[in-house]
């Protein structure tokens, strides 16, 4: 532990009586957080990569405006442009920098479109699971009557075998949802809802613990004594104080959601076959990975780097948001 009391040697006897201005303007808490966050190189890199990927999939289609679905059978099985460095006889094309697949679809355009799907599923599922988890955690922590019931429910949900249930649910509800919301929309709703519904438990537990501790603090007592309603206490005093654990579990949730979506696509129960996602591109490329290893590597590296970046971001956020570590 750091020792805060410093001995400055000989003290001016009247120094304590003088009214000194603070040496610097008081710093915003978030500036401190940012300073601590900057120290974690991996977290900065991870966050930067996540921003890069998000921007790339958002803006990519406007810069690289090739239709990912367009078949160009004459130019099928084009290798990526960097293959030409060691193999001059390989079929490469400058306007197909990542090559094309066995139907002549542009892989770069597919990567962007697939990343869009993966990131959209990841962010939405994470937000859903976060809101469910926070709502249940706050309710269980704040209202004593609900605590037992909600926490037993959380325990029960933690005992569910998630991946088998996901597979079961996706195969069962695919048809009706596709009929109602279209093949892509239905699948999107299904995966987001299922991932959200099965991954809120950790957030709920963490938030409940924090709320239980915060509830006994004096400022809550003060707020209550001036007649603040429960809703206002939760909104104005409790939720801002649990933002940091929620943010950390948000990063974890994003990583889990991206991996789960890719795993479902990989097992062949995800999005329809003409709708590219990273997991689906990987799965489609596996049978011919001896001839075209880059088709496995590109989506696989994209998934892994995104998840790695998100995990590092979470690590850095945890350190930066923890006031006991901050400033050391």
């Amino acid at each position: 532990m750091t020792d805060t009391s410093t001995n400055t040697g000989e003290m001016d006897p009247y120094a304590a009586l003088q009214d000194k201005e603070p040496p610097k303007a008081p710093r915003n808490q978030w500036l401190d957080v940012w300073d601590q966050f900057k120290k974690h190189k991996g977290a900065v890199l991870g966050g930067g990569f996540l921003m890069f990927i998000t921007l790339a999939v958002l803006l990519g289609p406007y810069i690289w405006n090739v239709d990912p679905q367009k078949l160009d059978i004459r130019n099928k099985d084009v290798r990526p442009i960097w293959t030409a460095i060691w193999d001059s006889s390989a079929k490469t094309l400058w306007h197909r920098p990542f090559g094309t697949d066995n139907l002549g679809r542009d892989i770069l355009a597919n990567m962007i479109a697939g990343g869009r799907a993966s990131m959209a599923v990841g962010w939405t599922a994470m937000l859903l699971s976060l809101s469910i988890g926070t709502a249940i955690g706050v309710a269980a922590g704040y209202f004593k009557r609900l605590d037992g019931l909600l926490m037993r429910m959380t325990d029960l949900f933690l005992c569910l075998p998630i991946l088998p249930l996901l597979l079961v649910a996706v195969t069962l509800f695919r048809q009706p949802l596709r009929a109602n919301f279209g093949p892509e929309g239905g699948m999107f709703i299904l995966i987001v809802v299922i991932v959200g519904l099965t991954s809120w438990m950790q957030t709920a537990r963490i938030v409940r613990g924090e709320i239980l501790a915060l509830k006994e603090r004096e400022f809550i007592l003060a707020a209550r004594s001036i007649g603040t309603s429960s809703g206002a206490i939760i909104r104005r005093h409790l939720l801002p104080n649990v933002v940091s654990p929620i943010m950390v579990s948000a990063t974890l949730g994003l990583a889990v959601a991206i991996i789960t979506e890719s795993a479902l696509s990989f097992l062949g129960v995800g999005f329809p076959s003409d709708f590219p996602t990273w997991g689906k591109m990987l799965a489609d490329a596996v049978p011919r990975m001896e001839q075209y290893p880059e088709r496995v590597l590109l989506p696989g590296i994209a998934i892994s780097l995104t998840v790695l970046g998100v995990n590092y971001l979470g690590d850095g956020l945890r350190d930066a948001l923890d006031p006991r570590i901050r400033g050391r």
Partner: protein
Amino acid sequence: MLTFTIRRLFFSIPTLLFISIVIFGLLQMAPGDPMAQVPLTVPPEVKQKMREALGLGAPVHIQYLKWLNQFFIVEPQFLIDWMTRSSFLFGWLPDTQLGMVYDVELEKLVPQQRNISWQTRSPIMDIVIQRIPQTLWVVGLAYLVGILISLPIGVYSAYRHYSIFDQTGTFITMVGFSIPPFFTGPLLIVIFSVTLGWLPSIYDTTHVVKDWASFKYQLSQMILPVMVLALQTTAQISRYMRASMLDNLNQDYVRTARAKGLKEGVVVMVHVLRNSMIPVITVIALGVPSIFGGAIITENVFGVNGIGQLLITALFANDIPMVMTITFIFAIMIVAFNLVADVLYGVLDPRIRYD
């Protein structure tokens, strides 16, 4: 401690019932029809009779209770019969024949009706029992390898905190944590079976070990799936081990142990390690079911025909009873290992008393 264990055992019954209701309810909504494979020439009323013979005409709660009866009463009887009849361990006991009932018309003992798969029309538990050894071999070995690698890494990273070994170790575990098994699987296949040609890419389950050469082949085909699964385990457990060691290395008892002149090896390997293992062991116990779940993907990549692959094929074939049984087996494992972890935690750490 004993009362706690018993109480937890009782609590796990409603948990399992809840899970079985969730799974059963989900599967009730399934659009699949077991008669879909029957030829169209079979008239509809015959098909209806066949459905009723499968028990599909009964109300939902009757179906559910019958399923419970099958799973918890009939199948264990057959398991005991099988053990006393042909297993190595209990084969010397007299044959129990619990699963047999006396048929009045035939005037002899016949086996009870069992829960059958819609795909193969054979009892589900028989298929599951056939598949479990493959999964156990690959998954169990992977878990063991993962633990054996991760513990020393975690200990040494914590002991040499912020050293180069620690930095690289943390980075590698983070990478192993982030790369999904459906990418490491194909990646390792590309490297080791396609480019280098050292190892087979598909797990051959029909392979029989009878001599040294076949044993070597068995080992070589197990390396890749075990490596994929072990990477995940190693990443998780070594992180826990490192954090737990770091917590303990700054404790007062470590200073005391050093002050009384114990060798550094004894301090770290006996005093600190034993205390750090307490949370790690519960994490290891809690991780067993999740690695079985993760094995679904690995089995799919390498073609291991274990229980995870059985689940996938049953799902695609709309084999509802099979899906129900396997999912429930996964649930039982989760509940059981949660219980084991809780009890172990109390046993290992005398400061923790539940009652």
